[in-house]
């Protein structure tokens, strides 16, 4: 065991030709990756590029469908993280895996294979002090985890991994939950660990921190390695270009059109996330008639919270949101809908539909409250059914009948029904969150055409997507979000992939 008791650290980890498929879709395709001891390696890419999958394979959470892993020249096959931990690999996930009501020491003792059965936390505090001296990893041993800040919790996770003998430490988006000051602390710790001979892998989409911290960077896109460089030999611009790629084809028939009056006006809006941190920070944004505004950015930079604030699902802390000149700040979702805002939600099955209700019942979700589908008390099922038939016909939803439960439809057809339902409400503003995420090519194209049609008919569309191709194909203007702020708003004509890539990575052009 190359654990904590052996002075010898892992020298080199080689992943060769690693492939992993999920339901036939390649998450990783023939990836070669080398990680050396004493080195900090950055794994850069957009969401869905396959970074986390690759590291989960190295950590034993997934088994690769192809390829092999060599540690110091010896082939290994991990059946579970337990095997990976034995081999000296540790991982700190983006979402911490700690028991909130237990103390730090208890959490660290939990799952440690060498602690005694009785009083497992005994002696643990001594060991913790040792790490504090060695790497500056300060954690309060007796505090309960829920009392700790995100940065402290992360340190607990790191200590946990080190204590189990991790020579190679993988951190998945480690700074996403940290304040800038905590990030600086973390980087100092990681640098000290590397100088002691540990290997470190950082999964990130932030260009500056990769350049700041890492020795080497490997860029993934759509499951493949698209670039590799020493950070001292590469610029931000080059990295951004690698990350987002250039394979953009403008295949849609997009015609310039003069934009009309302002439909949505967002002024200085600040919104908090579920965790209470500021998720949307002083955002200004307008969407006009006959215009599609695209919001680009890596997921988790405040797009979801902004959409929820606009559609009435989340409280606005400060600022003002207007629809056609009418203030709708902190109104209920029902009022905002009545004011003309339709919403294709991000998690379409959880939020957009009720899987166990019938298709026709789903066809009026949200509008069930209004005429012609209801009077004061009763629903008009005749009207509802004929409306559902209309949607199914006009939006080519493949359904056996409108009398089957929604859950029997495929993903693409569910989305077509949602789009049909929202569009048929004749909204002034259509907010579409990741409208084609996970859909097949046909459904994707159909839905993009529907969005363009809204624009041609003179309505306003706010499109949130991680798919840059989609954003560039459809949008008149592109706003890029990073850490809750809009980094810049680019006109379609002047927008370049390089520029968007830089803004997405938090670099102002």
């Amino acid at each position, binding site marked *: 065991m190359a654990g904590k008791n052996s002075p010898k650290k892992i020298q080199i980890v080689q992943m060769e030709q690693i492939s992993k498929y999920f339901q036939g879709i390649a998450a990783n395709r023939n990836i070669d990756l080398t990680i050396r001891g004493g080195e900090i390696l950055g794994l850069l890419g957009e969401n869905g590029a396959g970074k986390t999958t690759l590291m989960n394979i190295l950590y034993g959470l997934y088994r690769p469908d192809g390829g092999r892993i060599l540690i110091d020249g010896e082939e290994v096959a991990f059946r579970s993280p337990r095997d990976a931990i034995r081999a000296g690999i540790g991982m700190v996930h983006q979402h911490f895996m700690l028991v909130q009501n237990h103390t730090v020491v208890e959490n660290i003792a939990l799952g440690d294979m060498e602690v005694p059965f009785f009083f497992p936390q005994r002696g643990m505090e001594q060991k913790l002090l040792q790490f504090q001296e060695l790497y500056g990893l300060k954690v309060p041993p007796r505090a309960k985890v829920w009392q700790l800040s995100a940065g402290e919790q992360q340190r607990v996770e790191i200590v946990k991994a080190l204590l189990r003998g991790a020579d190679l430490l993988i951190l998945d988006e480690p700074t996403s939950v940290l304040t800038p000051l905590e990030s600086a602390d973390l980087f100092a710790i990681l640098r000290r660990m590397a100088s002691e001979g540990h290997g470190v892998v950082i999964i990130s989409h932030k260009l500056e921190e990769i350049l700041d911290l890492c020795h080497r960077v490997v860029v993934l896109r759509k499951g493949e390695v698209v670039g590799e460089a020493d950070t001292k030999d590469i610029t931000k611009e080059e990295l951004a270009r690698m990350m987002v790629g250039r394979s953009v084809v403008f295949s849609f028939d997009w015609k310039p059109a003069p934009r009309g009056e302002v439909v949505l006006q967002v002024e200085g809006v600040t919104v908090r996330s579920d965790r209470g941190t500021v998720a949307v920070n002083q955002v200004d944004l307008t969407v006009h008639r006959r215009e599609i505004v695209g919001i680009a950015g890596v997921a988790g930079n405040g797009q979801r919270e902004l959409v929820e604030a606009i559609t009435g699902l989340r409280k606005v802390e400060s600022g003002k949101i207007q629809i056609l000149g009418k203030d709708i700040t902190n109104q209920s*979702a029902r009022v*905002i809908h009545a004011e003309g805002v339709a919403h294709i939600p991000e998690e379409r099955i959880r*939020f957009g*539909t*009720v*899987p166990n209700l019938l298709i026709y019942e789903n066809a009026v979700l949200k509008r069930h*409250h209004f005429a012609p589908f*209801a009077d004061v*008390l009763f*629903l008009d099922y005749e009207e509802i059914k004929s409306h559902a038939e209309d949607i199914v016909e006009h939006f080519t939803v493949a359904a056996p009948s409108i009398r089957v439960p929604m859950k029997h439809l495929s993903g693409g057809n569910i989305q077509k029904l949602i789009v049909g339902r929202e569009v048929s409400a004749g909204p002034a503003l259509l907010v579409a969150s990741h409208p084609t995420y996970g859909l097949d090519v046909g459904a994707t194209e159909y839905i993009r055409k529907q969005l363009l049609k809204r624009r041609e008919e003179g309505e306003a569309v706010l499109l949130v997507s991680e798919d840059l191709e989609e954003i560039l194909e459809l949008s008149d203007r592109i706003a890029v979000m990073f850490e809750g702020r809009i980094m810049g708003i680019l006109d379609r004509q002047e927008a370049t992939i390089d520029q968007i890539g830089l803004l997405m990575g938090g670099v102002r052009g």
Partner: protein
Amino acid sequence: MQLGTVQVSVQWEVRKKQTPLLSVLTLIGALGIGFLWVGFVFVFLGVDPVFALQKIFIGSFGSLYGWKESLTKGIPLFLISSGLCVAYQAKFWNIGAESQLLMGAVCSTWFGLQFGASLSPILGIPLMFFVGFLGGALWGVIPAILKVRFGMNEVISTLMMNYVAAEFVSYLIVGPWKGSTKYGYPYTDDLPKHLLLGTIPGTRIHYVTLVLGIVISMALFILLYRTKFGYEVRVVGESPEAAKYAGIDFFRTSLWIMIISGGVAGMAGVGEVAGIHHHLSYPGNISAGYGFTAIITAWLGKLNPLGSLLSGLFFAGILVGGDAIQISLRLPAATVHIFNGILLFVLLIGNFFLNYRPVVQIRRR
């Protein structure tokens, strides 16, 4: 599981279609297994199971007397379980119908004793039911507020409030409300004669409540499946996220759900006091656990208020049949509870098989 070189694995697959035939078959299968199991319990108790089951059947639906008693006990079940259907469709787990019934009984007793003497039956009886409804509704709304405003689990709060209500009733009948005409027994005085509910001659069936139960079941069916409110109840129950997205006010909906569910349970309490006992007495006398049995009947009726009429009658029969064997075979009173438990258990398992089907894979290695 491994058998030599053959590997056997069982996976549960969600059934896409549930035909009515399959529903009926699983119901029959579940009840069959349930009665078989109950039969074993009888053997264990030293009783011939065939004879005992026969007794149960004759005591419930196999004789005129049985029918009279089954209908009488069915009345509160009809009311309570159709109210519970509304709550459970919203996945609001009201386990407190027993106490909502008791509070209905308490409030209507108070009203009857306080104001009854000067009221005509035409006015007094509807008012009594109304006050009973309010009592149950108020008791039901408290857990709803605790849940939505303070995040308290409604299973715990409704369950605990059962004990509170029961102790409260006991306190009233031995304390401040103890009747002056009851020779020291822990009962309240009888309600005024003209406010007592009429019964079908030769039975204990208080027909006003019976009609009320059937009408309310039908009304709640319409409420659930034909109105905006019912639609919202079902959306809330199936997907809280979709409900939020659709702009449904969770607080308001929860309040109304518990007003309805608690209120109709309260009306069942009025029926028990004004139709059967004529006064308030020990909680165990006022309700033979109807609030709990109704949980079973609501599920057995597939959370459909009309279905719960049938299942309510069926379970009332089991209660009556249980009484019959208790007397004729001298079995302990708890036997009936064992019955209820076993039947609920097999019905839930039957439901599982209705929703999932096993896929057995056999692979040679």
